[in-house]
């Protein structure tokens, strides 16, 4: 069990890390953890619903400054800022999950097949991937969100629109990474050895190549999550997001707070903005430190004292048990 735990991607790195890298990773994990917890428990923590306009004693009122009832004030539309910030985390996590899950499977499959088989399929896919790269991703997201939601925006319609538009941009990223790894691994002797044995291409792809190619995925996963979050906020800010009655969304709130800033109403813009910054920062910190820790050359280590440590075995021969020992062990 202990060995299984230590092989989980993030836990292993956490144990490996030292100094600044550990600080970065722990900070990132804490922020991300809070973000996810808030998302899960938003209904319990938030004092009001995300679309709630009135409490027990009448309407909240628009643009109320922070007070005991509304600790972060209310928006121009009369919503409670604190509640919408909390509920917004839920929307953000859903979008990240849907976007990454949709893109990761398609991306990996395409990368694996295209990298291993090569040929014309590979060339066509690479060109398509490059074309998508060349396209401004936000523009693509806008077009897709219009196509998917048709101008309407329910909770799932909005989430799917945002998530799928991000998916289109992400698939080429996963595709590229997996394809590059596959091409590298294809030339490894253990793949040749499997070929020598007469293993079918499918068996080689899934038993030998796939598991060895997914090493860098946690890193891209986290980096893409923060990008997904930013794209969602960008869509909301531009007015292609989710209606306030369907779900809370930070980008939308920022957009509505635009005119407030000039008239000295700071609370409507500050808190959703801060939420976006913190969530992205947390996820990025995790991603970047995983990235550094994955590379032995970038990984920091504690300095050791002079003359410390055990001498490792020189000759491989001495680590071999003698024939007698083997016979005893096998008997």
């Amino acid at each position: 069990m202990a060995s299984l735990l230590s092989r989980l991607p993030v836990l292993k790195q956490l144990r490996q890390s030292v100094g600044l890298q550990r600080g970065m990773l722990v900070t990132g994990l804490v922020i991300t953890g809070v973000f996810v917890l808030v998302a899960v428990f938003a209904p319990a923590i938030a004092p009001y619903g995300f679309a709630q306009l009135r409490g027990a004693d009448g309407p909240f009122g628009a643009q109320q400054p922070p007070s005991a009832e509304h600790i972060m004030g209310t928006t121009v539309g009369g919503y409670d800022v604190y509640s919408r910030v909390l509920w917004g985390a839920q929307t953000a996590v859903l979008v990240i999950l849907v976007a990454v899950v949709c893109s990761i499977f398609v991306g990996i499959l395409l990368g694996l097949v295209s990298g291993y088989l090569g040929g014309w399929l590979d060339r066509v896919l690479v060109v398509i991937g490059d074309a998508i790269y060349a396209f401004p991703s936000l523009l693509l997201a806008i077009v897709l969100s219009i196509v998917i939601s048709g101008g309407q925006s329910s909770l799932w319609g909005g989430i799917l629109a945002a998530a799928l538009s991000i998916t289109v941009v992400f698939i080429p990223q996963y595709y590229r990474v997996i394809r590059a790894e596959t091409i590298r691994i294809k030339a490894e002797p253990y793949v040749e050895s499997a070929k020598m044995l007469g293993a079918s291409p499918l068996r080689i792809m899934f038993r030998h190549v796939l598991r060895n190619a997914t090493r860098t995925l946690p890193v891209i996963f986290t980096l893409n999550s923060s990008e997904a979050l930013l794209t969602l906020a960008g869509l909301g800010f531009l007015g292609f997001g989710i209606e306030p009655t369907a779900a809370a969304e930070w980008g939308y709130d920022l957009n509505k707070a635009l005119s407030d800033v000039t008239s000295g109403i700071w609370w409507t813009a500050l808190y959703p903005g801060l939420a976006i910054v913190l969530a992205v920062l947390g996820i990025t910190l995790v991603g970047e430190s995983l990235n550094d820790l994955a590379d032995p050359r970038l990984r920091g280590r504690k300095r050791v004292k002079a003359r410390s440590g055990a001498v490792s075995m020189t000759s491989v021969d001495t680590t071999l048990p003698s024939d007698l020992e083997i016979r005893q062990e096998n008997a």
Partner: protein
Amino acid sequence: MNPAESVVEIDDLSVSFATDHGAVKAVDGVSLRVARGEVLAIVGESGSGKTVTAKSILGLLPETATTGGAVLLSSRSGDAVNDVVALDGARLRAVRGSDVAMVFQEPSSALNPVFTVGWQIAEGLRAHRRLSRAEAKREAVEILRTVGIPDPEVRVNHYPHQFSGGQKQRVVIAAALVLGPGLIVADEPTTALDVTVQAEILDLLRRLRDEFGTAIVLITHNMGVVADLADRVAVMFQGEVVEQAEAHALFAHPQHDYTKRLLAAVPRLGAGRLVAHDRVAPDARGRAEPAGRPVVEASGLVIDYPGRLGRRGFRAVDEVSFRIGAGEVLGLVGESGSGKTTIGRAIGGLTRITGGSLRVLGHEMLGFSERRFKPARADIGFVFQDPAASFNPLLTIAEAVAEPLVIHGRAASPAAARPRVDELLEAVQLPKGYGDRYPHELSGGQRQRASLARGLALDPTLLIADEPTSALDVSVQARVLELFAELQHDLGFAALFISHDLAVVDLLADRIAVLHRGRLVEEGPGAEVLERPRHEYTRRLIASLPVPDPVEQAQRRAALAALG
């Protein structure tokens, strides 16, 4: 010996590394001294700390290392002594190059491909002295002439890829020599080179010592190279120097147990005493194939690699004919680029042949079809060169050994194949429990045994072994070769044994085929090829092979010089 006479004096050096698994000590209390104009060889197997010791002379250890003790380095003129361990930044740079320089193992990666060799040699000059471009170039030409590059005035403007491997190593030596350091540290300077080129580089290093009085610290695992060049030898084992002696004394009367074992493990030419027909058990002989029918038969075999657009292809194998009979071991010897690996891959169906005929177990490989050949794969085992890379790192040894059984339908799953896998592991002298380990948890020799087990899993008629021991240390190599011979004796499979090392091939092969630039220059029974070589290239190959005995090696060197 007074300190002024020694170029470097290492006193109680210890080096520890910070790793993911805590501190690891690589060098433990090593004291060495190198006199002016002396060649000190540090020998030992991988992980013995020889390279770390050498690198500490230049202060080249990575940040994760912590060093204790002292490395006292004298300047060329002998008027300054620095403790390299205590130096930092600018003062360390001043010492490097002018007092001590390094020659690396792999000349292709030690040279920067985008600069001319002249520029790279002059780089060292410019770092230490102010001189004009023309002066620097003149010195570069001069030093290239010294190391024996023909037409140095022209060649100084060439890029590394325009030189052969041996010439590249000469350029690296020139760059090390250009500031006239009193000491050169050569880390496995000939390991990446072919044996005939190795002899030339060793000659060059010897000349440096004799003509320029340069001291050399030679790091190597090859006892033949030590016998050829070294004045004094230090044997390292597990981070310590276990024995230090004059070269003649060490080879004649090794004192320490480890030294004795090391010397005993070195394969010697002419030690291959057995012939296959004595080795193959009578009942195993001709088991799979009717008598007289060869397992592999090549006639006029041609393999071309296609060139890039508009360029001619490269002919890797040119009109080669040979046969491997049932239960016979054919040793295929040649230098890098001779086409030996290509032939092995063609027999295994990994490379397509382009001309002639190659029949493997009755299948014609010209116009190869994977579907028709697949059943035959069950009868061919393959052992790869690098045991570390030929195992999927995410599968356990048992799963990897079970792969051939599962693929060819002899077992439903790796778990079902386990009894047979245990049997195989036992046959290659690995404990059964090792089946549950991952490849990285095994040592090099153990992995190569597991690789052998995988190759033999389907009880093949033919085993192709491509340099199976060249990634292993000598003592391990000896045991793997022994094992190979034993298994071949017991199971009676035919084998193609590919190697660049004549002495290794000699131990196992019934017949030896010598390849040179894609052509088969000589083929015949082992004893005949080695004792009465007919082709000039074979003679040179045999003469170039350094033997682990300084006296005999001096004679062989003279003989090689006579060959021209």
